[in-house]
């Protein structure tokens, strides 16, 4: 039973943290009475007020937008960012034809160039949220190729290249007039604000209420624009990672058992977060500590 004291300590810590986080609790309202459009306006207003000195497009740069000391190191690293190798690999993979002679470009509008900002979208035919990563693997399946693993490797390289061709284009996420699309949005919103895992944290505990503050050595990124720089090269990983890799590791850090990559719940979460960030320009691929 050697885990017991640690467990106990963790639980007691959480009890403390809970009240700390909740002290800043927001006025409650019947959340379903607001439209996504109203949610987005409130969401963006919150972060603009919380970080009055951050220019709106700069929210794409996460912790570097809100912390000067980190920004200096980031600018140093951006002189020759370590994701450059991934972008090269992604471009080659993107342009290399499948066995049937077709390419990724054939699966996307505008041949896949400059389209990152439109993902994820709600597919009214299948009734589900489609992320860029999912679209890439569906493209492979349609062309008789095996799916790529979602968290790192070629998938990260492909999305790095596709993001780079989309830099500066503002997030342009739509919620079509379809009750299923609205339900997916609401599910993502609920997941974002719900507490999960042993540490009793929600996504919002760190990336809304405590955003810009230090958690151990790191500065917590504001939720606004938080996906705009993906995929990212994290020094901590020493490699590239996709949004799935980040969601999975966030879950694990909250001591919640991660969902499988591209689980519908994670896709709904990405849909909600990206919609909240409408207008923030794509800045991926990015680097993070």
């Amino acid at each position: 039973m050697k885990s017991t004291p640690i467990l106990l300590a963790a639980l007691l810590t959480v009890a403390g943290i809970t009240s700390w986080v909740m002290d800043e609790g927001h006025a409650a309202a019947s959340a379903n009475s607001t439209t996504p459009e109203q949610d987005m306006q409130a969401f963006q207003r919150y972060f603009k007020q919380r970080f009055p000195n951050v220019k709106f497009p700069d929210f794409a740069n996460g912790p570097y937008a809100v912390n000067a000391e980190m920004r200096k190191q980031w600018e140093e690293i951006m002189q020759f960012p370590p994701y450059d190798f991934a972008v090269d690999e992604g471009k080659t993979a993107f342009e290399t034809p499948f066995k049937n002679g077709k390419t990724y470009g054939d699966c996307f509008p505008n041949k896949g160039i400059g389209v990152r900002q439109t993902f994820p979208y709600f597919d009214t035919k299948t009734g589900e949220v489609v992320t860029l990563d999912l679209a890439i693997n569906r493209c492979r399946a349609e062309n008789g190729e095996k799916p790529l693993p979602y968290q790192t490797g070629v998938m990260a390289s492909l999305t790095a290249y596709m993001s780079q061709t989309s830099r500066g284009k503002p997030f342009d996420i739509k919620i079509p007039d379809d009750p299923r699309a609205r339900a997916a949005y609401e599910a993502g919103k609920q997941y974002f604000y719900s507490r999960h895992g042993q540490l009793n944290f929600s996504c919002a505990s760190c990336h809304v209420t405590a955003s810009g503050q230090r958690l151990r050595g790191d500065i917590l990124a504001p939720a606004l624009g938080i996906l705009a720089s993906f995929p990212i090269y994290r020094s901590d990983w020493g490699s590239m990672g996709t949004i799935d890799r980040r969601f999975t590791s966030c879950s694990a850090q909250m001591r919640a058992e991660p969902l499988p990559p591209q689980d519908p719940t994670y896709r709904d979460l990405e849909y909600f977060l990206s919609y909240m960030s409408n207008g923030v320009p794509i800045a991926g691929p990015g680097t993070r500590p």
Partner: protein
Amino acid sequence: MEGPSQFKMPSATRRGALAMLALAGLTGFAGKVWAAVAPGWPENAFKQKSKDDAVKALYGKPMTTSDKITLEVPEIAENGAVVPVTVSTTLPNVTSISILVEQNPYTVAASYKLSDATLPSVGCRLKMAKTTAVIGVVESGGNLYSTSKQVKVTLGGCGG
């Protein structure tokens, strides 16, 4: 870099390597055999675990502090795995610049040999095990100068 200088190992090192090779052959620890030393690489200096021993192994002479060296490091490293460090100097006739990290497992992080055409400024990214001093060492006109700065390294693994 040309030529078979690969084999210009000091004899003691070579004997050691040969002994290791024999040992590896006997015990099957084949992985060890592949340890090679690039030509010119100051193997002994990279083994030192203190500032004084490192400087002695690298240069064999004492150093004095100088305000003519600029050491650019972050106050708080965003991640100890990637700490940007730049050493520049206005001292003349610079032949070598080295960077030491005082409490890393091995003190010498990097050492640069400059030609007479090289500008006296080098930047790189280093790993730091914990909060400690980074020391920039400059060899100028045959003499050694240094400056140092503390860099705070905190636990990461979250955020982003």
